[in-house]
């Protein structure tokens, strides 16, 4: 237990409380002063050793200071030097270190023998994994093995995984759970701009006048950033508009809440564009200089069948054709589709259209977990491109990310089947670039993408895939249409390795369980939503034989004969790997900061050029990569122009009908991190939100005589389950919709969800399927 060296501990704690308040006040009111006698004698840090790290949990990437005493992490506070959170932190962040000290932490490898897990040595477990992988490749070919990682992988974890599988083994069967959370954001960026990740940064919050949240419960999912919005409202009177399918804490805190029918955000976005053009609010010079217009294929399907494939065929169009297309999306017509009044559509359009109002659009899972996820990303960019409100401070379409390194590891390192650290496997020059740095023959890198996440689990079911290594993720809670994929893992001839820190439903299906070192028990880096790479040192020892995922992969790679490519020294391997990784991104468009810079400050944003982070890409005032002599240069596209996409509204693959008459939407809660395997082991968070529930609209609940706590039977075409009801509690869905959080492994709501996905991004839609609702 932490005890101060002062004799009067309570007095000391009170002084700490004053110090915390003064720090928060100074963050919110720069220059604020208190009387000298009040600031005197305040404690500095007790006898704790405070070290900086990015938070372990969400994609905001808050800087935290971790207090270490006698080899144990005992305290957390927001890092006042971090420009991300300015000393603030959310409830998960403040309890993050407690996630390391659960009673059932995995400390030793376990190998399944005769149906029972047997404790074994790390050497024996790693030997077994390497030999099983080699045996599988010999019997079934290199594309029968795979790795499924995570946006919670550190950058070195993902890098060595990609190098081993793509560069050495020669399979593109590398995926990560970020496919489930931000793949549509990636394809949205690539199709609109030719370059992934937001052009702006969190500083946009300090400049914007209006914030439009597109299906984004920011108060619960990105609470520190949302607190920055609320702070700006107190200081500058900014407006917050919540545009969603469910009333949440974000809606309650917003200035205006607008509800829409599921999937119709596509129609509303087009209606806003219609209004912008009809009212003459188009920034004509910006559009003429910096934009082109295209349309793609429609009626693409939903990926419901195995081995589904789709390739878009973009076709250039002119502005008149686009204008004609939008005539189907007048506010009055869209009111009937979306259930949003024409007045509210015009209200939103008026803010985007006002040249004197700076607008920031923010979104996350609502737009990305969408069977037309790429399209809705394109359409929100259209609004910003038509008005020229982009790449300038406060004018910012901003895709928020869910996980601490979904950007840093999955998108930038490229741990998706089609990706390389720089570029894509389909591109010969990109393959040559990677092969040279990896020191492997270029022929090793397969030019064809293989299995995206849903298809990877389908391949496991079919038997096309025989070996899967899962690290830092819990797919036996999070995969849609879960039962099919859980059953797949139990089939004969499948070998599953799971690296994690606690027992989960995913370790339950493993043949080998490896205990992993978590977060500050090892050294690493994360990359957050604003292109910021942040370093953390090893602060405490991992328990038992727990080992970092990076080193697990290196050990197996060496056992498989790739000693040359993985000749890193144990004491310096993170530095060696990061320096090697930086070589992939050299140049003005994606240069990464040197490690010594990351060690000395709370991160740096790429492109990092001439010792400086780039805050606003594509704007020549801020971005050294702009080279066309104009104010803006969308250099991700060969013609230097961003694309305004003609994309229609199309319905969801499964909508309510006579038998299954409700929408089912799933999501998260503020207290728990994703599948709850860490936060449910933190007592205060578990007590605050102990179990899953189903939210109903009060009118629906009254009609069915359901009260809070009553059991409700939910049935979809995939199965059924009983869940306690919540009426007028945390959130309120629209009539005809129910909402279930997915954090509770005892209520596996994904047994009911549908594995339909966006044909372009291959990201599943967890927000919409048809469900029957009955009082149990």
């Amino acid at each position: 237990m932490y005890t101060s060296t002062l004799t009067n501990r309570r007095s000391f704690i009170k002084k700490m409380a004053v110090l915390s308040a003064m720090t928060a006040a100074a963050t919110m009111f720069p220059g604020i002063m208190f009387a000298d006698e009040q600031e005197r004698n305040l404690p500095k840090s007790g006898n704790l050793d405070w070290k900086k790290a990015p938070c372990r949990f969400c994609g905001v990437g808050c800087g935290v200071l971790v207090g270490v005493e006698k080899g144990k992490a005992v305290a957390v506070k927001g890092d006042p030097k971090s420009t991300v959170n300015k000393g603030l932190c959310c409830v998960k962040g403040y309890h993050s270190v407690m996630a390391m000290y659960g009673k059932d932490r995995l400390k030793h490898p376990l190998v399944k023998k005769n149906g029972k897990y047997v404790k074994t040595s790390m050497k024996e477990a790693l030997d077994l994994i390497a030999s099983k992988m080699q045996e599988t490749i010999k019997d079934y070919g290199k594309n029968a093995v795979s790795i499924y990682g995570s946006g919670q992988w550190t950058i070195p974890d993902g890098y060595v995984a990609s190098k081993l599988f793509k560069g050495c083994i020669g399979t593109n069967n590398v995926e990560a759970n970020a496919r489930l959370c931000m793949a549509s954001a990636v394809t949205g960026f690539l199709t609109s701009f030719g370059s992934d990740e937001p052009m702006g940064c969190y500083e946009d919050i300090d400049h914007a006048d209006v914030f439009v949240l597109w299906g984004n419960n920011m108060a619960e999912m990105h609470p520190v950033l949302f607190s920055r919005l609320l702070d700006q409202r107190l200081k500058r009177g900014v407006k917050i508009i919540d545009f969603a399918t469910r009333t949440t804490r974000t809606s309650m805190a917003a200035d205006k809440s607008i509800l829409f029918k599921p999937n119709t955000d596509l129609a509303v976005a087009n209606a806003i564009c219609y209004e912008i053009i009809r009212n003459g609010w188009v920034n004509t010079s910006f559009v003429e200089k910096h934009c082109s217009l295209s349309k793609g294929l429609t009626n693409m399907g939903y990926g419901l069948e195995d081995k589904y494939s789709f390739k878009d065929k973009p076709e250039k169009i002119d502005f008149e054709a686009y204008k004609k297309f939008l005539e189907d999306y007048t506010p009055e017509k869209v009111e009937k589709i979306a259930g949003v009044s024409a007045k509210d559509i015009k209200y939103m359009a008026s803010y985007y259209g006002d040249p004197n109002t700076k607008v920031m659009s923010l979104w996350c899972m609502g737009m990305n977990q969408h069977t037309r996820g790429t399209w809705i990303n394109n359409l929100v960019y259209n609004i910003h491109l038509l008005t020229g409100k982009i790449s300038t401070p406060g004018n910012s379409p901003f895709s928020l990310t869910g996980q601490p390194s979904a950007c840093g590891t999955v998108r930038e390192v490229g741990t998706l089947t089609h990706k390389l650290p720089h570029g894509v496997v389909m591109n010969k020059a990109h393959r040559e670039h990677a092969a040279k740095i990896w020191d492997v023959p270029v022929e090793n890198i397969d030019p064809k993408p293989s299995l995206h996440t849903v298809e990877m689990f389908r391949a496991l079911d079919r038997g096309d895939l025989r070996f899967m290594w899962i690290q830092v993720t819990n797919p036996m809670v999070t995969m849609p249409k879960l039962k099919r994929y859980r059953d797949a893992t139990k089939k004969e001839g499948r070998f599953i390795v799971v690296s994690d820190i606690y027992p989960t439903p995913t370790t339950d299906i493993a043949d080998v369980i490896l205990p992993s070192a978590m977060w500050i028990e090892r050294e690493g880096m994360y990359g957050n939503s604003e292109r910021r790479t942040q370093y953390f040192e090893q602060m405490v020892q991992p328990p038992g034989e727990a080992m970092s995922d990076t080193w697990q992969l290196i050990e197996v790679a060496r056992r498989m004969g790739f000693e040359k490519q993985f000749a890193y020294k144990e004491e310096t391997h993170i530095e060696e790997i990061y320096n090697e990784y930086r070589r992939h991104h050299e140049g003005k468009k994606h240069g990464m900061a040197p490690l010594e810079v990351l060690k000395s400050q709370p991160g740096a944003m790429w492109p990092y050029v001439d010792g400086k982070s780039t805050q606003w890409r594509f704007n020549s005032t801020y971005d050294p990569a702009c080279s066309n002599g104009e104010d803006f240069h969308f250099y991700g596209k060969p013609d230097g122009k961003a694309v305004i996409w003609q994309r229609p509204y199309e319905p969801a693959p499964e909508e309510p009908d006579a038998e299954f008459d409700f929408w089912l939407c799933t999501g998260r809660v503020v207290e728990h991190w994703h599948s709850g395997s860490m936060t449910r082991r933190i007592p205060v968070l578990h007590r605050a939100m102990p179990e899953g529930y189903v939210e109903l609209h009060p009118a629906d609940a009254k009609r069915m005589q359901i009260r809070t706590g009553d059991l409700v039977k939910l049935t979809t075409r995939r199965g059924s389950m009983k869940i306690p009801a919540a009426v007028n509690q945390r959130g309120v869905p629209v009539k005809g919709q129910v909402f279930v959080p997915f954090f509770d492994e005892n209520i596996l709501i994904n047994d009911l969800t549908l594995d339909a996905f966006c044909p372009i991004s291959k990201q599943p839609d967890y927000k919409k399927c048809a469900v029957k609702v009955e009082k149990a």
Partner: protein
Amino acid sequence: MTIVIEIPAFMSVIYPCIKKTIKMPIKSYLAHPHHGKKMELYQTLSALSKCEVIPAENKDLLILVTDTDSSSEEDRLQEKLQAIDSMKLLAMVSGFNTTKN
């Protein structure tokens, strides 16, 4: 293990359920007065037992630190705080779990 729990200002909007479940005998807040009511708020808070008040010298803001002995005393104090007319917003910043010496 004692974890320092600091909840940022404005989070009272976002975390009402958390406030109910964490027992924090020592808390600090940022107290925002209504326009022109800073001195009145300072005097009102200073008159309450178990409260220490530190006014900012150059901004309309006060720091409030409360130190209660029991849950019931904490609840009574919360009722008094919520009834203060001169206070526009009370945002909790930190809570410390501790024991008496």
